[in-house]
């Protein structure tokens, strides 16, 4: 199929780690796409049509066929554009990649957010502990690899962009010392490699507006105390 006949659209919001995952995948594959910035406070008809179940971004639309859920989208991209593979070819390695990506979603994403954005101190502490524990698993899993995917980054690295770019922002805002090179030397080193990788660098949102937005949210949270 000629490139010009492919219709690829991504509905997202700037500053979303989940949207970013998809952008990294598309960049890696060199896929041209149309980006539609959504306003989550005033969701477009398009978003509601393409993701009626969750009404969330990212939503990936390929030739009028919508797919929501960032990791589902990334696997779809990998299966549709086969060069620069994101998942390994061996079934066991694929299973491990899927496991650790899910682990990040289940055990890191929520806890890390709540480690900062929770008013109740006890609740917040609990989430700090949970985040720490989860990051420790990942530290151990990384071992001496350059990326979770080996010499090149893969599914788990893409899923972990949340850790590499967003967690440092949260913790700066919240004055939290969680993800540091002292606590997680390997993971920290990985995060530097990853955010500086040309494909990733070009896909990340600009830090300042994201920081400002998240800081405002933090302040309004404390104000509501």
């Amino acid at each position: 199929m000629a490139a010009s006949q492919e219709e690829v659209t991504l509905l997202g919001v700037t500053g979303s780690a989940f949207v970013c995952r998809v952008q990294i995948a598309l960049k890696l594959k060199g896929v041209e796409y149309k980006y539609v910035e959504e306003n989550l406070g005033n969701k477009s008809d398009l978003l509601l049509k393409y993701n009626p179940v969750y009404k969330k971004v990212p939503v990936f639309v390929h030739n009028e066929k919508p797919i929501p859920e960032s990791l589902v989208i990334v696997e779809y991209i990998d299966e549709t554009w086969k060069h620069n593979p994101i998942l390994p070819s061996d079934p066991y390695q694929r299973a491990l990649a899927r496991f650790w990506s899910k682990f990040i979603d289940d055990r890191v994403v929520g806890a890390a957010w709540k480690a900062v954005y929770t008013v109740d101190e006890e609740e917040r502490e609990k989430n700090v502990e949970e985040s720490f524990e989860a990051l420790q698993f990942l530290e151990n899993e990384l071992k001496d690899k350059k990326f979770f995917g080996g010499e090149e980054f893969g599914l788990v690295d893409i899923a972990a962009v949340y850790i590499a770019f967003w967690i440092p922002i949260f913790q700066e805002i919240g004055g939290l010392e969680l993800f540091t090179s002292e606590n997680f030397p390997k993971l920290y080193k990985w995060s530097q490699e990853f955010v500086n990788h040309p494909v990733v660098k070009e896909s990340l949102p600009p830090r300042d507006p994201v920081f400002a937005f998240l800081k405002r949210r933090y302040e309004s949270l404390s104000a509501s105390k």
Partner: protein
Amino acid sequence: MAENHEGEVKLLGFVGSPFTYRVQLALKLKGAQYEFLEDNLEHQSQLLLKYNPIHKKVPVLVHNEKPIIESLVILEYVDETWNGNPILPEEPYPRALARFWAKFIDEKCLSAVWKAASTFDEKEREKAVEESQEVLQILENELKDKFFGGEALGLVDIVGTFVAFWLPAIEQLVGLELLTSEKFPKLYNWSHEVLNLPVVKETLPPREPFFAAFKARLESLTPSK
């Protein structure tokens, strides 16, 4: 591929658990021989500590001594490792949809039903029942063929055995009425189609262990994860 390429397959799980069951059903569909190792919640078994020391969860599929955890990850692994009776569709878009709906059932359905069954506060319970019905309605709307997988059982149907078998069991236990033929005719019919399939009939667990475990959980009312 050599006749005995399968190697050694073990499944560590709980009898009566919907997560363990999905893997059993998948292995049966593929005609894969395996050894079932029953784990017991009360006593953290030696087997679990051996095969899943970090996360301590079942089911665990062990193939040639390599452990794989997380039921959805295991299902994809089984599909990729054993040929015949495909669990996921071949084309990337239907595959993405199958993954999306399987995740939906796991993330929305199970927790909604658990909440509806375990909440004692009447108002909260009513809310949870409403939520469960919303979820079931979404599935009702999504079902277009005989099975979610089309003419034959697929990933979503396998994961959906929770709705076909466990949901009615829970309803009976706590006196709830959720999946009725009046409210959800297609889903209701589908559940009967699924339960009547020989491959399902032959593999469904007895209800008692599940009832016992569920009752115990209700009584302790520990928050589920």
